[in-house]
């Protein structure tokens, strides 16, 4: 970044403040829709921090993928499962909350002391003049070619798997007959689904 030191420090402070505040809001706010929007705020703040770390391509990918895809997907899932229900209180749930808070604070203290106590061997060279995006492209098509192709295969598998998992189990009654002639994905037969539901109830 070609910014002055003080400007970088102030923007890092503001961005980390918004990141941490939005992350705490994601975890603690009762309404899950507000949590989803605050999650988008966290992602955008982290993209700003990536810009401070000379990662312009990764900041763009963060905004495109996390805010544009993952956050929208989470909002759609919230809308699809939006059932107003008050969860039944679990006895002695404060034990779990308190112990988790203790473990998290202990882990944070451990990591902080490790970070401060370690003598990091900082590299002396400044960032590459061509920018990071040229270097990332070279890595993708030379020494990280196999993971790059495997990632594409994994994305295809996740796409097919998500479609199969989220598909409805059987067709509704009124449209079952005329849909038989149309090219459709093979659905689970109704008898199987009904017997599975019955055995589920019986259990």
């Amino acid at each position, binding site marked *: 970044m070609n910014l002055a030191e003080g400007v970088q420090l102030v923007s*890092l402070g503001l961005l*980390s403040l918004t*990141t*941490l505040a939005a*992350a*705490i809001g*994601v*975890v603690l706010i009762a309404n*899950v829709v507000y*949590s*989803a929007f605050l999650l988008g705020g*966290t*992602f955008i703040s*982290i993209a700003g921090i990536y810009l401070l*770390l*000379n*990662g312009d391509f*990764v900041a763009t*990918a963060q905004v495109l*993928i*996390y805010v544009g*895809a*993952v956050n929208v997907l*989470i909002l759609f*899932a919230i809308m699809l*499962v939006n*059932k107003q*229900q008050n*969860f*039944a209180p679990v006895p002695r749930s404060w034990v*779990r909350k308190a112990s*988790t*808070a203790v473990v*998290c*604070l202990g*882990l944070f203290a451990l*990591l*902080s002391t490790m*970070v*401060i106590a370690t003598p990091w*061997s900082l*590299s002396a060279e400044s*960032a*590459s003049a061509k920018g990071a995006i040229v*270097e*990332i492209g070279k*890595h*993708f098509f030379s020494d990280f070619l196999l*993971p790059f192709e495997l*990632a594409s295969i994994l*994305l295809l*598998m*996740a796409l097919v*798997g*998500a*479609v199969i*998992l*989220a598909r409805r*189990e059987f067709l509704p009654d009124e449209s079952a007959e005329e849909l038989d002639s149309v090219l459709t994905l093979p659905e689970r037969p109704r008898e199987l689904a009904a017997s599975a539901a019955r055995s*589920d109830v019986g259990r």
Partner: protein
Amino acid sequence: MQLQYFLILAAALFCIGIYGLINSRNAVRVLMSVELMLNAVNLNLMAFSSYLDSLTVKGQVFTVFVIAIAAAEAAVGLAIVLAIYRNRDTVDMEQFNLLKW
């Protein structure tokens, strides 16, 4: 500007993610906490790539891979949440005990 600031910020984000992962009742919020933890790891990778390896930015390559895997994980996870909501008619994590014993 020091490396330590970024690492401490990432550690705080990771701990908030762990707290939300364990204490959330809503299944969608659990997935959001997992995304928070993945972002903390990405922040660590970016900080190391910028401060320790600024010529060959391998940390940024790994960050892009983690972002791709996280997108796949979010898609499959939300599909599982939808399927289990259709099966159980709830998103309460306390009632998802069908693999417990």
